[in-house]
């Protein structure tokens, strides 16, 4: 260190006279880091709705651009994943994991669980990286930061759309007859997106404060995958354990998966699953949004 960095104690600059109450003296001035009220905040988000769609659409297009199969990977990824689990649990383990007198096969059961789960998993993982990966944007443009998680969920939803078609195609191929209840996949996915958004809000701010969270997350998500009744029917394994069953079925992911399976595999829907899924969705959205927004002016520090 050379002496060049020493501050000049003989500086001739005198601080300007600033009145004690700036806003009373000059009424047109506002603090630059003032948090807009909730209504204004939401309006500012709405004003950026094109931004929230254009950005993920561009990212999605760019995602597999350098691969030979290109955009087809959006279809192959869910197919391969399903194939791996099918190979392990149907061909190798070869033990009945679902109800014996079900009208559908294990493959259909599996695909209707893995695909919806993947959607939540990917959004949460992305949510956890959000503030860090958008550092330069956050440090140079002022916009409601909640735009970022919303935009990320929209991007994952676009990718998930393709995966849902793959899911339905696989279900059809296993011999399940399509029914009008398949249309329920649309509202179920809509609410799952909002559920994912709530989680994404939480994950974004948590990693912003504790980078370690990003390392824990994959394990938490893995555990969540195994307890969500994706590979097996919860009923089948908890017949003599009512408490255990209650706990496993209170899991919101399981509720969404049940809704998807009921609609696509059996052409029906259950009110209890809807209540559970919507309850979690509403609660998480509100908690996540307010938790995320409370640190709004801090994110520039990332």
């Amino acid at each position: 260190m050379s002496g060049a960095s020493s501050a000049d104690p003989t500086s001739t600059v005198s601080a300007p006279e600033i009145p004690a109450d700036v806003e009373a003296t000059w009424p047109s001035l506002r603090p630059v880091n003032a948090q807009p009220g909730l209504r204004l905040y939401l309006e500012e988000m709405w004003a950026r709705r094109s931004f929230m769609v254009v950005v993920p659409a561009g990212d999605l297009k760019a995602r597999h651009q350098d691969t030979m199969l290109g955009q087809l990977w959006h279809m192959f990824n869910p197919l391969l994943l399903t194939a791996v689990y099918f190979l392990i649990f149907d061909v190798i383990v070869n033990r009945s994991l679902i109800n014996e007198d079900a009208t559908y096969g294990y493959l259909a059961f599996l695909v209707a669980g893995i695909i919806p789960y993947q959607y939540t998993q990917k959004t949460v993982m992305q949510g956890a990286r959000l503030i860090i990966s958008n550092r330069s944007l956050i440090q140079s443009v002022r916009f409601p930061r909640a735009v970022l998680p919303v935009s990320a969920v929209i991007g994952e939803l676009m990718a998930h759309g393709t995966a849902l078609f793959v899911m339905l195609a696989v279900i059809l191929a296993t011999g399940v007859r399509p029914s009008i209840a398949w249309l329920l996949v649309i509202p179920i996915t809509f609410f799952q997106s909002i559920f994912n958004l709530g989680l994404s809000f939480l994950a974004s701010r948590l990693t912003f404060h504790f980078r370690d969270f990003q390392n824990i997350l994959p394990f938490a998500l893995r555990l969540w995958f195994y307890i969500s009744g994706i590979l097996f029917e919860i009923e089948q394994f908890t017949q003599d354990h009512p408490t255990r069953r209650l706990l496993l079925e209170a899991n919101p992911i399981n509720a969404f998966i049940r809704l998807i399976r009921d609609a696509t595999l059996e052409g029906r829907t259950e009110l209890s699953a809807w209540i559970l899924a919507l309850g979690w969705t509403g609660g998480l959205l509100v908690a996540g949004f307010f938790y995320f927004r409370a640190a709004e002016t801090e994110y520039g520090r990332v």
Partner: protein
Amino acid sequence: MSDPTVVVHDVSVTYRIHADSRPTLRRLLVGGRPSEGRRHRDVEAVKNVSFIVHPGESVGIIGRNGSGKSTLLRAMAGLLPATSGQIWAQSVPVLLGVQAALNSELSARRNVLLGGTALGMTKTEVDGRVDDILEFAGVEQFQDLPLRAFSSGMKARLQFAISTAVRPQILMIDEALAVGDEEFKEKSGERIREIMGSAGTLFLVAHAMPTIEELCSRVIWIDDGRIRGDGSPDEVIPAYRSAWRAARKRREGPESD
């Protein structure tokens, strides 16, 4: 007298840098001094800075690299929280920095939409002005090419055109004017004067003194996070230059580092 556009009162900004201070094998062998026992270090980038800016003023901010100029701009734009002190402004200052919102895989036209909406314009507003913006940047004939095919000068021009299309009352430019050819420099200078003419305020961080002399009516000199000079360009720039020469002489003197 009308209200000031920006008031900065006793503002300090401290960064927390997470330093890796684990004992390394090399340090153990060579016996070097470990960098303190702490896991992080607080860096005071801006220290007790105060000033008032009035409508129509254009303020050049000068100082060496790392003296805190960019941090100060970011704090004034509300992008970075001040650790202490407070900043007021008549409207939220817009930092010329939309490049972070742009996507190099998308076309220039699409990027105008992206940058414009990031700055808060509606899609209809952008649609109505996209041709003007592309024309101002001088890239109309390349509007369908992806941005990655653009030269850095073209990108900088487009960025300037997008940022100034919203006509912010307070515009901040961080070392961006050095780009572009003579013709564009003239056009951008004109637009800046336009913004200042409509009772706006400009903050310009630059190392090129001629740019500052040409565009700024006032210069703030930041050194090591503190204000060391604040006044007209013909007062502050010579003082800055002579301090800089003196510092270089000291460095090149006894040590030959």
